[in-house]
């Protein structure tokens, strides 16, 4: 791991304090995204993947969330130490975000045109005073340019009738259309990094497929780095270059996509892969048990209560991520000789 990566997360630890106590939902997470890469963060619901994404985007609700430790470096700059205003400018210029549920992420009472126009014109500017805002309406040339750009973007995400879509309110559009609009909005100001949080999950299979495809084409063409959050190993396999597997707030395994599917190592990854129903008709019993209580996590490895290979050491100490082959890292004592024999 080096600082020349576009995004580097080090030792990120996030706590949630609620009525019932403090829950450590992300624990000591390391992750990086290189230029032009699509990296998947895979895990089941409640594993902390969305929380991680929100922390990177700076939209983690705090409280109840709290970043207890760690750093999030973007081009070497620690986002957690950056002032709000600078962060906002940085996000506007460099980040894109494609959310999970297209139905709630567009403001229902503004037209797509208004929303795209403002997003393009003002994102990344530190502040906007009323005069500047009004002037943006008067400058008809610039306005026409922006509308052109919006139409262009909509066309590029395969929207057949961009003129109509631009004039519509979100209620008039279907889920797939809205998700395209959101992708177009994210791409409009040429970000260098994008977080996609399960962009196809809320949609029908064939529509979600269209969305993933459009997203991949655009991103590859424009060389944007993507952190793709998903629960679906199959989708991660199709889209990404590298994969992180997350369980209960920890990264348990990471490798390049090929490597991971050829030789998965961590018992959780193995269990997950076996649980996925196969097209040739095979399905395992899945992983027994439930995800641990975050308020009182089990000592040692958080997966040990559900692990078929649990050893005494797993109950005592938490395994660290350890490189077993170039770029393939696993957090499990099965792959560490000295601990295994303890």
């Amino acid at each position: 791991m080096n600082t020349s990566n576009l995004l580097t997360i080090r030792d990120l630890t996030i706590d949630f304090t609620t009525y019932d106590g403090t829950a450590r939902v992300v624990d000591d997470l390391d992750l990086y995204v290189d230029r032009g890469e699509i990296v998947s963060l895979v895990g089941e619901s409640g594993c902390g993947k969305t929380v991680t994404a929100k922390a990177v985007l700076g939209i983690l609700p705090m409280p109840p969330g709290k970043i207890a430790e760690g750093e999030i470096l973007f081009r070497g700059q620690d986002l957690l130490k950056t002032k709000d205003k600078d962060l906002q400018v940085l996000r506007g210029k460099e980040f894109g975000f494609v959310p999970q549920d297209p139905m709630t992420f567009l403001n229902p009472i503004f037209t797509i045109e208004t929303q795209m126009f403002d997003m393009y014109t003002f994102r990344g500017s530190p502040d906007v005073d009323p005069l500047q805002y009004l002037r943006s309406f008067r400058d008809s040339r610039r306005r026409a340019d922006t509308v052109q750009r919006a139409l262009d973007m909509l066309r590029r995400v395969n929207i057949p009738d961009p003129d109509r879509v631009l004039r519509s309110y979100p209620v008039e559009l279907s889920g797939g259309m809205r998700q395209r609009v959101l992708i177009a909005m994210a791409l409009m100001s040429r970000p260098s990094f994008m977080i996609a949080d399960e962009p196809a999950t809320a949609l029908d299979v064939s529509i979600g497929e269209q969305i993933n495809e459009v997203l991949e084409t655009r991103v590859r063409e424009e060389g944007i780095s993507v952190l793709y959050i998903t629960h679906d190993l199959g989708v991660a396999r199709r889209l990404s270059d590298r994969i992180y597997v997350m369980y209960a707030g920890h990264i348990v395994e990471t490798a390049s996509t090929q490597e991971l599917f050829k030789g998965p190592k961590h018992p959780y990854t193995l269990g997950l892969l076996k649980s996925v129903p196969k097209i040739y008709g095979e399905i395992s019993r899945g992983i027994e048990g439930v995800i641990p209580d975050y308020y009182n996590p089990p000592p040692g490895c958080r997966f040990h209560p559900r692990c078929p290979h649990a050893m005494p050491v797993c109950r005592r100490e938490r395994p660290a991520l350890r490189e077993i082959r170039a770029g393939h890292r696993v957090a499990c004592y099965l792959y560490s000789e000295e601990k295994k024999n303890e």
Partner: protein
Amino acid sequence: MGYGSYLIRRLLYTIPIIFGISVLIFILTRVIPGDPVKLALGPDATPDMIAQARRIWNLDKPLYMQYIAFIVGFFTGDWGISLRTYNNVLADLARFAPATYELTAVAVSFSALVGILTGIVAATHKDKWQDHISRILSIGGVSMPLFWSGIMLQLLIASYFKLLPIGGRIGDGVTPPVHVTGFYLLDSLFSGNWIAFWSCAQHIILPAFVLSFPSLANINRLVRSAMIDQRSKDYVILQEANGMPRRLIVYKYMLKNSLASAITMIALMFAYSLGGVALVEAVFFWPGMGNYLVQAIHFKDFNAIMSVVVLVGIIIVAANFLVDLLYGYLDPRIRYGEER
């Protein structure tokens, strides 16, 4: 479904409501009491007097005929004779209603304006001193009985500090302005009668201020909670994540969403104030419809009661229609989404 047919539907919807109000009030004041004449004339009335009164007021006819007569009369301008003032109710109301409307209009405009502004300030300064102050004031605003806070302010400002007049609509010895709209403030302004205008303005401040308390508090809190609600909306989070300037998000996107609900609240508060005005008028000796209604009730003056209530109902229905109009304009979901 377009905006036009949405509005027509809303407009059609008002008809059964107005009809319902007239039936309800007819039942309350004429059917349940049994014989309004006996009530009105009191125990000393002779049978002859009662019979005569019955004939005059159409009470010898069956109930549905009485109702039809009442409705026809209402829409042809024959609102009957008041049992208390022996005037035509319409003439009475022409005198008293503008006073009430003036007071309510001033109070509601004030509370809408100030309520929205303070609501925004409270929301953008959540849990700072601005928020605490507006919170304490608005909790007081809804929890205090209107008549009590009226009396207390009257004591303090009018009696003790003598800053403003205790009550009434215009100072003694000041000639009221020429009757055009019946709104003293407007009439005196248009006729250039500055003395009357000044006196009226001084008189209206306290009652309007007191009347605006609950509305102000409600609007303030609604705007605040709507704005804070907006903050956790996904579309706002998306804009934040995409680095839009905070001010644009707050004052364009969040505000417009919040105003949609604030407008409904303003209409509701207008209706509420038309009720509360009876209390304020009683405290500040304001010669308006509220006082007129209360007196009418004491005298069982059913013609006056029915007319006032139906009139108030129509005004509120009209206000609601206006809100529908605005709301449909502000929120396209109403226009497009209703049938989906």
